[in-house]
């Protein structure tokens, strides 16, 4: 929906600017070639996913006997309920959902507290502490894996969702704080001054005045965090060995390893694992674009 509206809006604004530009035949040809290239790139970016969807609906005879580009003759929708219940995919799916939700909430709460204290309050070490969080962006998480594994083993958190959720939260704090930072810095000081005049405590200023102002950017950080957590692989693969607590990425990977030759089942599992993200993208593409751009470049 969202994308379509924008497309329409662009078409409209495009026609206006076109009347200003004197389009010669040569430049129109040039634009045609450019559109062709952009269109081919778009097909390259999307077609593999469409192909995945196609083979998720095929039987093995179709996969092995016919052209990979052929449409499924009798779409095997049954592949989906089959993998959902047989391959533990339902269990993995709900694990992914609640790990993601808890980690996202924890991350944006902690990050909001820190960003408020760093940007709005006066203390000596604030620059240094901010630095600690920002440098976290450059740290390769693989360098922490062995000590983390050892630590979680000692505190009996191996095969416990807490190990995964704490790791997600810690490693997503830097990028979340970075996105929040610019927004907090833009909030005028007068708002807090008014709060202080009215006799508000600092907690009241934060919770009742500043935090509600940040809802739009919180939505952006939440969706970015959601994508990262949903797709995370290494922590779960390392800290969780029991099927009970695996997430969809790791579960799907194991499943595909076991059912090497059943392409329909593999396709259906992969589709289930990417569908929530694709739906979120259709609904919230603007926020995702904004969040990814903001989280990467401000540093």
């Amino acid at each position, binding site marked *: 929906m969202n*994308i379509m509206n924008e*497309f329409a809006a*662009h078409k409209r604004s495009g026609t206006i600017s*076109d009347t200003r530009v004197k389009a010669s035949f040569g430049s129109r040809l040039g*634009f045609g070639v450019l*559109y062709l*290239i*952009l269109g081919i*790139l778009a097909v*390259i*970016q999307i077609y*593999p996913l469409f192909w995945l969807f196609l083979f998720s609906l095929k039987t093995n005879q179709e996969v092995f006997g016919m052209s*990979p*580009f052929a449409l499924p003759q009798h779409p095997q929708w049954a592949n989906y309920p089959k993998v959902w219940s047989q391959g533990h995919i339902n269990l993995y799916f709900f694990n992914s959902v609640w790990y993601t939700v808890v980690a996202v909430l924890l991350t944006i709460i*902690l990050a909001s507290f*820190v960003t*408020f204290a760093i940007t709005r*309050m006066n203390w000596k070490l604030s620059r240094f502490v901010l630095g*600690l969080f920002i440098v*976290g962006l*450059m*740290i*390769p998480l693989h*360098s*922490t*894996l062995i*000590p983390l*594994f*050892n630590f979680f083993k000692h505190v009996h958190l191996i095969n416990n969702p807490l190990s995964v959720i704490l790791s997600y*939260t*810690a490693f997503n*704090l830097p990028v979340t704080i970075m996105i929040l930072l610019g927004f907090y810095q833009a909030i005028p000081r007068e708002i*807090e*001054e008014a709060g*202080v005049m009215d006799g*508000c405590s*600092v907690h009241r*200023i934060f919770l009742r005045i500043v935090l509600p102002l940040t809802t739009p950017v919180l939505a952006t950080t939440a969706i970015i965090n959601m994508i990262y957590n949903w*797709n*995370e*692989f*290494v922590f779960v693969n*390392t800290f969780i060995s029991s099927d009970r607590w695996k997430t969809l*990425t*790791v579960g*799907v*990977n194991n499943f595909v390893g076991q059912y090497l030759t059943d392409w329909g089942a*593999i396709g259906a599992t*992969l589709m289930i694992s*990417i569908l929530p*993200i*694709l739906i979120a*993208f259709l609904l919230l*593409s603007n926020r*995702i*674009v904004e969040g*990814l*751009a903001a989280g*990467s*470049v401000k540093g």
Partner: protein
Amino acid sequence: MKAVMSNKSAIALYVLPALLLILIIIYIPLVLTGYYGMMDWKGFAPMKFIGLDNYNKLIHDSMFWKSTYHSVLLGICSTFSLLIYLAVSMVLASRIKGANLFRKIYLIPMLLSSVAIAQLWSKIYDPSNGMLNHLLTSIGIQNPPLWLSDPNIVLFAIFVPIVWQYAGFYIIIYYAALKNVSEEVIEAATIDGATPWQVASRIKLPLISPVFKVTIILALVGSLKYFDLIFVMTGGGPNHASEVMASYMYGEAFSKYNFGYGSAVGFALLLICLLMTWLIRKLTTSGEDVQY
């Protein structure tokens, strides 16, 4: 005002939980990795201090240097692919209808997990039923490559889905930067008779160079950290032909249970990442940033 906003206990309450978390999950483990690297520590046996033996072994470990070389190679290729993304962004940011739609379509692969991408591309590369070789044979190529099982091209075969995955990410960054270039500057130049090519090369590119530098760091350091995609697609194989630093470290630690040596590799990975970041900063901040 000042008293309220420098309330020490409130600051501690707000900062300490998150700070403790990143210290415990990120910073203390980083130090410990360096320390564990000085241990003889295999499997479930207790660790024993052996000084710098592991690091000494690392320096002479041709497998480690091979994986480092692969990581750096992927990093350099990724950096060059930035130029393609930049070119596409410049086209999109000029008068193109539906630019917003295009950049959103390009972004879609970036949203998928590396595991899903790796599984999907393993199927695309499948020698007998995959879509790529089918396409190649149908246009007349007799013996299409075996992609993931050919040691000579496996790294290239892995690089392609990386480009596919990250294209949209860099394009939205460049697009945003290009759209930030002030219209007035461009208009003034056009009135003075600058061609579109001159506007692009003399005005737009210099103005977005700070963003370009950041993306070089992202691409290079990001490449040094590549793991998920390679781990799932090839596991570093065939015969270590696609081994990278992170997968080598992971294999040493969690397949062979060489925790001591794995830690040394992990620490080297950290140092190389930090060194690379510092080096690029150093190399790219020499010139003054351009302003108009």
